[in-house]
């Protein structure tokens, strides 16, 4: 038999060396180091963009000419105007300098500064994809929470099934389907929503204009939400499932916490963490817009601009939109890291 315990228990459990509280300085440092990493990535994007777009097939000047007959002199002149006759290193330095000054060059196709084109298109894109993101995230979190909480229930099976089905449908196909049914109208279904552009030609002013734009947004937004909300639902559902099986949930129940309070106070906030991270990473892509959806519904956004740039091809425009999209993804990923850090005390002091 083992000897009975002597009261070896120390009277005081001093707080010990871990006494310094993790401070906000820790978070700031973390944010700065992340920002440093992001700057490095952006620099790499600049380098990458410069070389990739100069290695692409086709002579930009000839592309610019678009089959129009130009004399060699004219081509030379054009080449010099674009700085293509200088050594590569000078070209690169010029490129970096211009980019930093937000001078992204002039579009071959539209004959206007790329930055102006982006400026015009970014509003509609942010409006459409931002609204879509908010709806998809809310829908996903709401359904994911319910499905995870009542794991295996009818609601769980139906909502998970439907969202995954929509997720697996090609955007193009779903977009066209919705356009046919609710836009053009089929059989007894009248044309319910406009499906071309962002506003009507005869759009009224003031509040009427807001309504007009809103009605134009319905179908593209619906398409966007339908194909992406599954990922928020699934992340929320699985992380909630994980939280619900944790011992602290049992402990809270044993203390008398009601089920809905257990969900609100413990399970959902903790399960939201991975979802929030995912959302931030997605915000980066919002800027890029939804190329397919914008194309189908002729939405005057960045996605369509990018599509057009590839179709032409318009290298300066492609390069500009490409850089914008990559940089916003990098920035948002960095923000996602920092937000995660702020929300989770475990990582915060690590």
């Amino acid at each position, binding site marked *: *038999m083992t000897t009975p315990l002597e009261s070896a228990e120390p009277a005081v459990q*001093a707080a*010990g060396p871990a006494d310094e509280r993790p401070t906000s300085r820790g978070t700031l440092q973390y944010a700065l180091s992340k920002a440093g990493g992001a700057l490095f990535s952006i620099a790499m994007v600049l380098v990458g963009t410069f070389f990739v777009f100069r290695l692409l097939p086709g002579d930009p000047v000839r592309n610019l000419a678009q089959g129009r007959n130009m004399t060699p002199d004219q081509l030379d002149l054009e080449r010099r105007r674009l700085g293509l006759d200088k050594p590569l290193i000078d070209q690169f330095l010029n490129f970096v300098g211009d980019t930093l000054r937000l001078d992204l060059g002039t579009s071959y196709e539209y004959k206007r500064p790329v930055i102006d084109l982006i400026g015009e298109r970014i509003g509609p894109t942010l409006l459409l994809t931002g609204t879509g993101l908010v709806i998809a995230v809310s829908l996903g979190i709401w359904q994911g929470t319910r499905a995870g909480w009542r794991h295996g229930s009818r609601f769980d099976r139906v909502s998970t099934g439907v969202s995954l089905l929509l997720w697996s449908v090609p955007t193009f196909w779903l977009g066209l389907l919705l356009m046919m049914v609710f836009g053009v109208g089929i059989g007894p279904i009248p044309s319910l929503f406009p499906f071309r552009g962002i506003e009507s030609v005869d759009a009224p002013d003031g509040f009427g204009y807001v309504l007009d734009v809103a009605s134009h947004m319905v179908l593209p937004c619906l398409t966007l939400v339908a194909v992406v909300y599954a990922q928020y639902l699934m992340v929320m559902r699985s992380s909630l499932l994980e939280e619900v099986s944790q011992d602290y949930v*049992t402990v809270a*129940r044993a203390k*008398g916490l009601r089920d809905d309070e257990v969900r609100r106070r413990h399970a959902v906030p903790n399960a939201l963490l991975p979802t929030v991270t995912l959302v931030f990473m997605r915000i980066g892509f919002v800027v890029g817009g939804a190329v397919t959806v914008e194309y189908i519904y002729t939405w005057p956004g960045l996605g369509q601009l990018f599509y057009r740039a590839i179709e032409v091809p318009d290298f300066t425009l492609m390069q500009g939109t490409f850089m914008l999209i990559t940089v916003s993804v990098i920035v948002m990923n960095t923000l996602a890291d920092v937000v995660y850090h702020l929300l989770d005390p475990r990582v915060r002091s690590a």
Partner: protein
Amino acid sequence: MTETQTTAEAVTTTRPTLLEARDLHVEFSSRGRRARAVDGVNLAIGEGEIVALVGESGCGKTTLARTLLGLERPTSGEVRYDGNPLTYTSKALKTYRRQVQLVLQDPTGSLNPRHTVYEAVAEGPRIHGLPDEQDLVSKALSHAGLRPPDRFFLRYPHELSGGQRQRVVIAGALALNPKVLIADEPVASLDASVRGEILALLLRLRDELGLSALVVTHDLGLAWNIADRVAVMYLGRIVESGPVEQVLTAPRHPYTQALMSVLPESPERVVLTGEPPDPTRIPGGCRFHARCQVLASGKAAEAGVHTRCRTEPLPILPATPEAQAACYYAETTTP
């Protein structure tokens, strides 16, 4: 063996019962089959008494503990607290939660990683709307040996050691000023060096606060060290119970004997044969008979009980403090 334990035994018999399981059954249906996880248990925990519940993995200890806490509803039988059967209305349960509290094996999982120590300990008082929250939290932390308490308020669980975390969990239970602690393997996931501390803490809480405890464990040495009484569980039932020094120095049930024989001090080791117990297929007769070394060695046959061992179900042991064993062979050797 020692004087303290003799007095403990004397007290055992006179302690009024606080928490009791009466003919408790808990069944689960798993893949279409009924698992009788708790299959007829009588168990009483007296005021200020520490009872150890021992038994191998899967025998139903956690299920019994959860049912005693009201986290699981019994299929039949009842849980009684302070003489009254537990009812499962949310109001009655909420009142009950202040009396009986829970400590789990893994302190890391038992604490919400995003709640500070203060929030964790204050949760109980907040749920029940108790006044002087901060005072309660300070007192609970001090009782649990975390002093000075305010130095721990803003800590997060990951900043503490395993032993300190378990103290926070215990403090969270103590903040409700309960009468009974149900501790499911409270030290099994801790470093050997801090196990003694946590056990000593439980003993001190009993002495200082008069707390009763049911300590679930599969460590007999631990049961010996802290319990007044021990109940040995096998396949959903208590097969032997009684004062700890009696049961553990002179075990009467072959299953207890087999458990004891794996201790390093034991002269010879009994190796149990047969399939591990499965609560979906509880054998008839004595539920231990397929693995019983006494039956296998022919000693039961010598005593003439072997047929009963195989065919006749044993009665459920009552909730008495005295030593008792559910075994036909034991009955013949000790009157």
